[in-house]
């Protein structure tokens, strides 16, 4: 049996980014993943590299997000150099557009609250009236009242990022082990033993990156990860000529030409059924935002389950009782991918989280009443 420096539970964008980062640092890494059918936010996400409105209620999250956004070009360049895959990172600013005056007013208030929060100084999220939006997005419809713009915002081809990370992992010698759901983790002397139906994996350290399943895995190594998943629904159109130079929170055009239209936030957690009225609302808003989309064909819609810590902010924690065990979970696996690849991987290699950078994201916050409030998700 091969011994690993680190076993990572979860091969989605978060686990893969950490694994890639550890492989890059010369660590011997195994990634244990589920199989073809699994709840995979990495396959269902909206692919934004997004800053605006992140962190209301937790300024540290704003800083962490900005840092991740700024480190993304380095990740994209390294992946391209290593795998030849262009993940098409575009960071020329993004919009949240509003329909009608009431929505514009509501958004203005959110922007004001963000500005009033200490630590959000670098934020540069501004409201923009419709006339100014139209200069940047000429095809908006008459109902668009304006919106908020943040120059840090962008998007990326998240599926190609997923593939590039997996290809890069292989190139770094990381063992990606699919169809190995982990049923138990025990600490045995100075190593962890991870039980799977296909046998046991041993490693000196373990990183739990299993999304919402972290809630059940974390207690096995003296950690906690309270999760509150939600469901999101997205529709996507056929390819069309490029028309959208900036991504929106709810509409983006992929480099392939398809138009993704999101998204919902629902308590329902069955990802096999569709909520038709939600598709109707999203499609209606999309065609009011860009009237020319009305005649485009929708080729698919899907629902995905968001990985979502209970208060919406990331959890990064190391075990006090099981030294060498870490848990990492967050909603924004795309936005924070560079942080995971560079910062979290480094910390795991060093054996300790850097409290200056990620101390605010301890799961201990859930033990106090104050931790219950806020939402890291717009």
């Amino acid at each position, binding site marked *: 049996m091969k011994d690993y420096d680190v076993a990572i539970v979860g091969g989605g964008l978060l686990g893969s980014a950490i694994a890639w980062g550890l492989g890059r640092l010369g660590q011997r890494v195994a990634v244990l993943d589920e199989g073809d059918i699994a709840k*995979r936010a*990495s396959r269902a996400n909206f692919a934004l590299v997004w800053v605006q409105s992140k962190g209301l209620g937790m300024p540290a999250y704003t800083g962490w997000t900005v840092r991740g956004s700024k480190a993304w070009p380095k990740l994209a360049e390294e992946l391209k150099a290593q795998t030849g895959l262009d993940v098409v990172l575009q960071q020329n600013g993004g919009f949240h557009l509003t329909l009608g005056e009431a929505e514009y007013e509501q958004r203005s208030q959110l922007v004001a609250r963000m500005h009033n929060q200490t630590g959000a100084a670098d934020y540069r999220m501004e409201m923009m009236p419709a006339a100014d939006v139209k200069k940047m997005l000429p095809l908006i419809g008459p109902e668009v009242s304006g919106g908020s713009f943040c120059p840090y915002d962008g998007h990326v081809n998240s599926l190609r990022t997923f593939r590039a990370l997996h290809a890069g992992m292989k190139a770094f010698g990381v063992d990606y082990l699919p169809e190995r759901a982990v049923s138990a983790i025990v600490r045995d002397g100075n190593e962890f033993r991870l039980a799977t139906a296909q046998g046991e994996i041993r490693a000196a350290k373990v990183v739990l990156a299993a999304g919402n399943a972290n809630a059940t895995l974390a207690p096995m190594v003296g950690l906690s990860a309270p999760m509150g998943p939600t469901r999101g629904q997205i529709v996507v159109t056929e390819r069309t000529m490029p028309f959208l130079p900036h991504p929106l929170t709810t509409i983006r055009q992929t480099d392939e030409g398809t138009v993704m239209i999101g998204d919902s936030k629902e308590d329902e957690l069955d990802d096999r059924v569709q909520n038709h009225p939600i598709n109707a609302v999203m499609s209606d808003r999309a065609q009011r935002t860009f009237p020319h989309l009305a005649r485009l064909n929708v080729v698919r*819609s899907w629902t995905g389950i968001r990985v979502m810590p209970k208060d919406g902010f990331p959890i990064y924690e190391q075990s006090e009782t099981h030294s060498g065990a870490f848990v990492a979970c967050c909603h924004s696996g795309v936005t924070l991918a560079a942080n995971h690849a560079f910062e979290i991987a480094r910390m795991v290699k060093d054996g300790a989280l850097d409290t200056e950078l990620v101390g605010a994201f301890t799961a201990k916050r859930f033990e106090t009443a104050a931790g219950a409030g806020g939402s890291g998700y717009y």
Partner: protein
Amino acid sequence: MSAAPKRDQYDVVIIGAGPAGLAATADAAGAGLSTLLLDENAGPGGQVWRAINSTPVKEEALLGTDYWSGAEIAKAARDSGAEIIHRATVWSLDRNLEIGVSVGGGSAFIKARRVIIATGAQERPFPIPGWTLPGVMTAGAAQTMLKSSGLVPDCPTVIAGQGPLLWLLAAQILRLGGRIDRVLDTTPRANYMAALPHAFGFVTSPYFMKGLAMMREVRAKVPVTGGVTELAAAGNGKLDAVSYVTAGGKRETLSAELLLLHQGVVPNVNLAMAAGVEHRWNELQLCWTPVLDALGNSSIPGIAIAGDGAGIGGAQAAVWRGRAAAGSAIKASRSNAKVSDVSAQLRRAERGRAFLDTLFQPAKQFRIPQGDTIVCRCEEITAKDVLDSVAIGATGPNQLKAYRRTGMGPCQGRLCGLTVTELMAEARGKSPQEIGYYRLRAPVKPIMLSELANLPKTEEATKAVVRG
């Protein structure tokens, strides 16, 4: 012009107006059930009886008696009192028996107490080098043009592949004065021996004499090369040549502008799978078939599947399966209704199928391509691309899709799904059943964004989307 469904609820909604759908419609509506038949084409008939009411090929001998037998059933359906809508695209069906249907640029949801999916079959993908070149089409495509428009090839034409439809098409093209330069028969030689134990069932089936006569008719007019083991289409921007390897191992090339491919038909699974109907890999027919009881009831209560979508059985079997499914719907609606047992007729119609399935099981090299041969026509993904994905960790079609977009194009996996499953199974040393299939989702056929936008909305849905 087609109009939207008149009601928002029906006793039974039948999807597809081929043999199974027409027979089910005639019986269900005939028994007094409120019945809606939805069909994508301009008129009834499905593929096998395509253009039965409108074909310009009027002389009965040209298309044959099997074709014209559809006229009576189409008439029975038309006269049954059922509501029939053509050019209607069913794009959603779920376990609540709610059906999303698009007609004339607008969509609506309707509810059914029973649904009979009769969406039939499509031709099995035939992924050879060059199969995306202009001038390479399916044999079924040529037959569609022949039946509905009286169009026949008039350029250098090669027909390649295997199975009854190949010979029927060749005979029909020749009868209508069309041109065929060569038939390349890819039936594996070993299949003849394997099929032998099933031969008795076949020689006593209705196919036998007709099949022999048709092959004789074609052979009298066109050179036939049997035992072909390799096949490739070549050309720059359009088909110029077809090359092949003979049973004797000799490579030969023919000039051609049209190559018609066929290696059997497989169930059209998209709607049923999107509805959540359980399917299993069929080791004989080498495709996914739904798990059904004797009356065609699926794993989803209230959804039955009839016709070739239930597993390939041919037009006669489809008619009886349609009637069985209708009988089941009638019984569910009226417990005291008298429904005749059609199982004996169905068994008779299915006789000879095992022989055909064994004899015409396509060879591996025509199902599992290699190298630069395109697997996914929409996203232009090759066999090598698929294998590269397996090498970095793709375990099945859905992870592959994330890596390479296979199945994400407008055809939604219809032309690559079987190939992907078999190719990945081969590469990973697993069975196709273990590898699985794409998770399919509505809309199973593209519909305009405005159609989705105009569907009913709720306050709750708006709140779930508009979040500041």
